[in-house]
């Protein structure tokens, strides 16, 4: 079995008002050096296969078809061997 850890973020070209709001909060705390806060989503899933490239292919397809909307989001993921 393989486990995929997927991160979905708003594309760079899209304003992220949530990130902006959090950035203001971080600055209010005094962390003036923190810049460019972006909020995204984290998805973890297991793929039942012994073949890593198959796990990668399935994960990519799931991201493209459902987990991310290519108009507004980018995604990246890692796939690692997983013992339940």
């Amino acid at each position: 079995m393989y486990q995929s850890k997927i991160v979905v973020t708003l594309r760079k070209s899209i304003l992220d008002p949530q990130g902006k709001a959090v950035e203001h909060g971080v600055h209010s705390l005094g962390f003036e050096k923190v810049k460019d806060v972006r909020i995204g989503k984290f998805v973890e899933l297991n793929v039942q296969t012994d073949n890593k490239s198959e796990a990668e292919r399935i994960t990519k397809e799931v991201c493209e078809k459902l987990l991310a909307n290519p108009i507004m989001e980018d995604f990246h993921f890692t796939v690692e061997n997983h013992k339940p």
Partner: protein
Amino acid sequence: MSKLKFGVVVFPGSNCDHDAHYVVGTLLGHDARFIWHKEGSLGDVDVVILPGGFSYGDYLRCGAIARFSPVMKDVVRFANNGGIVMGICNGFQILTEAGLLPGVLLRNASLKFVCKYVHLRVENAETRFSSKCQQGEVLEIPIAHGDGNYFVDAGMLQKLEENRQIVLRYCGPGGQVTDAANPNGAISNIAGIVNETGNVLGMMPHPERASDPVLGHTDGRKIFDSLVESLVQQTVLT
């Protein structure tokens, strides 16, 4: 006048389905029925309404999971064959996720859920959803959403303009399209669009909440009346 057949799709979490059914069925006197999202087929309908609400709790992205409901395959087939589809609020979000309308609805720029009456300028009174309005007319219809910030890239925006696919824009009471009149940050103040062939409408405002005089505003009824007239004319011609 012969009765039209309206189908109102019900997803888990739809909450404006009864309002839409009431307007087209009770108020306008047509045949209206609910279509559960698990149905494989729409059956015999003239118009499909995807109502407002929070299908699947807005999980992942608004409309992202609803678009995979079994009935959506038939909605896509119906729309691609020229069938009339109207998506209101969450219905609009589902239509963009399903690829029947371009663009996407992002989180409101204010990050707040906005529920209030807004003014809308009719940008194209020649669509089958707006023919009962005057070009440039200002309608007053409520919005109620947290994710209505319409976005398309510059190329698609230009295409929407050129094809006159923008039907409604947020505006001030006098019709001025300004940032101050934009409740959610939508690009170019866009509140409603049609697809290239003009048979699919998506709009964030709720015309079904401004149709019965008892609720105080009836501008929303012009949207339903336009679409009924376009279909009745079509029947007379064929």
